[in-house]
């Protein structure tokens, strides 16, 4: 019985790790898209306030 329980816990942890890994990748991709939409630099530096991206978009439209 205890072996069965341990095996079930092990399987649950394995599934949780798999879900976590996939979740992390999805989150990272979603975060990058969100940053780009908000005009924040995905490199992480503080360039959001200068609006560099918006200018880029405007320039492209022109």
């Amino acid at each position: 019985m205890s072996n069965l329980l341990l095996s079930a816990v092990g399987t649950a942890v394995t599934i949780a790790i798999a879900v976590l890994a996939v979740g992390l990748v999805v989150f990272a991709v979603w975060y990058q898209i969100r940053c780009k939409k908000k005009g924040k630099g995905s490199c992480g530096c503080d360039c959001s306030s200068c609006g560099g991206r918006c200018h880029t978009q405007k320039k492209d439209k022109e």
Partner: protein
Amino acid sequence: MLKFALAGNPNCGKTTLFNALTGSTAHVGNWPGVTVDKREGVYKKGSVPVSVVDLPGIYSLSPYTPEELIARNFILEEKPDCVINIVDATNLERNLYLTTQLLEMDVPVVVALNMMDAVRKKGDALDSARLEKELGVPVAEISALRGEGIGDLMQCAYKAAQKKREGSSVLAHSSLSHLLADVTIALRGEGISHPLFHAVKLAEGDEEEVKAHPQQMQTVRAFQKQCAGEEFAGDLEAQIADARYKYITARFSAVLTRSAKPNTLSGSDKADRVLTHRIWGIPLFLVILFGIFHLTFGEDLFYLNAIFKIGFDVETGNDILNSFVAVFFSSAGVSSPGVILFNLMDFVCSLAGDGIANGVSAAGAAAWAQGLVNDGIWAGVSGVLSFIPQILFLFLLLSILEDSGYMARVAFILDRAFRKFGLSGRAFIPMIMGFGCSVPAAVNTRTLADEKERIMTNRVIPFFTCGAKAPILAAVCGAIAAQYAGINADLLVFALYLFGMAMAVLSVAVMRQTTMRGEVAPFIMELPAYHLPQFRSLMVHLWDKLKHYVQKAFTIIVASSVVIWFLSNFAWNWQMVEIQNSILYDIGAFVQWVCTPMGFGVQLGQFGWVFVVAAVTGLIAKENVISTFYVLAPAIGALIPGWDDGESGIGPVVALMEATGITWQGLVAFTVFNMLTIPCFAAAATVRGETPKGKFRYTVAFWMLTSYFTATAVYLVLSWWWTAFILLALAALFVAYIILRGRRAACRMRCGAEK
């Protein structure tokens, strides 16, 4: 919501005041031109919230530069409720030139006399009541840096915003008064707002105004003809500037009472005599820069071990205690502060890694899941995290230089050298910003008026090693120093930083002689006074960096580590396999040959592709290079019996050196390739935005070719010194070709002009 705009000369403290008002952490630098676009925040401490807009620094409201255009258009079109004109009280007369122009607009203006603490410290006295009377607008004394007088300033602005204000001009007492009055009345009749401002700009011959008001321009032209025989020969722009300065000198010079004799040198002037010396300036800069790298990356602090043989390993009989003591001392000597920080963080990461591994194992997770957590996610993240304190320490030292005002001097002293290669010292400012991150640096190139200079600067900004590349240098140089006696990590990092800068200058010189011919734009820069860096400002810089490093570690780096781990552990048929049968192995081995000339290709055998894969993942974010090493080292280690995979510190890089047999020359070439190649996606996208259409593909080609050929040359010269002669001969031929081509082009231009 009320809207207040902050306007003033460059480096007068607008952004410092903006941060103090809104609680923002916008980048503040002790040099002109840090802000190149407007930014908004909210002031919540008053009775009603106010939207505060920080405008870029400007000297006038004529649209000569993009910053002036942004500031002018904002005030004219967005109609702020009040303009807070920040005036550097230590440079009163020059700053008031802009004030006289702002007063011509139909907008409430409040003058904030900033840096009053510096005025008082010098023993000078400024009669702000008299200034207020002369200007006809409220004047408040403040010190944005110390947060003094800001409440009073906002009260003045609140009051001013309640009333409408009609523009007034100091030119009303000049010979232009009748012309301006006539044009102003005519424009007001047309229902145009800010008529006085437009009238003055029309008289100055402002292109936009001439196009917008052709009828009134006829009045101006008629006046010009009348003045043709006078002092300024009808040049009304010069006449207006002269009238403004005469008025300022006559009315406002008495406002400031100086205590010291004008010939007495201030502390800043005395320091400048040494630091900006025409001969010693550049060597001193190099010494300071080396000092910074030594304190950050030096394994042997002040070379005490090399000189006095002070270096030892402490054996306590306890593994954890041994590891802790090794944080501070090693057989190489006493660690520098940067290395201590790295060792401490690495020690913490090792403990955390052990805890995670034990936890996952105890929970009974499957072997692949344990591998994913330990060798994938945690290895990748901890690889980057362990370098963060060391890199932050480097940024702290660079921020001290920046905030003290020294970096502005560096731009000044390098102008002479840069000019010879075809670049002005102004371009050095975005390049210095490139040491932090290439993205804001590329945005800052907007301030460069010359398009060719802007393109060239954007191309070479990534050569200035950014914060994301710093861990690559730290890990690789640390590993080389650990494996080869006689090579110092700090010296190697310093040499590579300098190499990047030298490559930038050399590239500009070549471009100036080939595709980017043209005159070097003149460089005029106001040198800010030296001051002690503010603790808060330094902490804001570091907090910003830390926040984004951590954000990046737990987003891009984690995702990349998971993908790399998956590709290195699974085959095309989705079966879990050893690394030599994995998807990543096939991809890496397929492109490995490309890197052979650079020393990390087919000569490295079956695991050499690790370096190619690391370089490719670095295109997403440069930190990925290190995280890829940390993820792949355990997988490779698993195949070699009795091999230590070196999970902590620079261990994985050392381990990969042993497994692949890469030489230190190959590793240096690998680092050079990563320094000069296409930057991360974000930086590349920003450079694309700042480059004229159609030019970006050449920029990408430039990065790829420069990095490939330079890394090859570095590998060849370091491996076989005599190849330097062959390369120098080839370089000489290339230079001769460029010179001949230049002469032919000049001759063709001359012939064309004669015809």
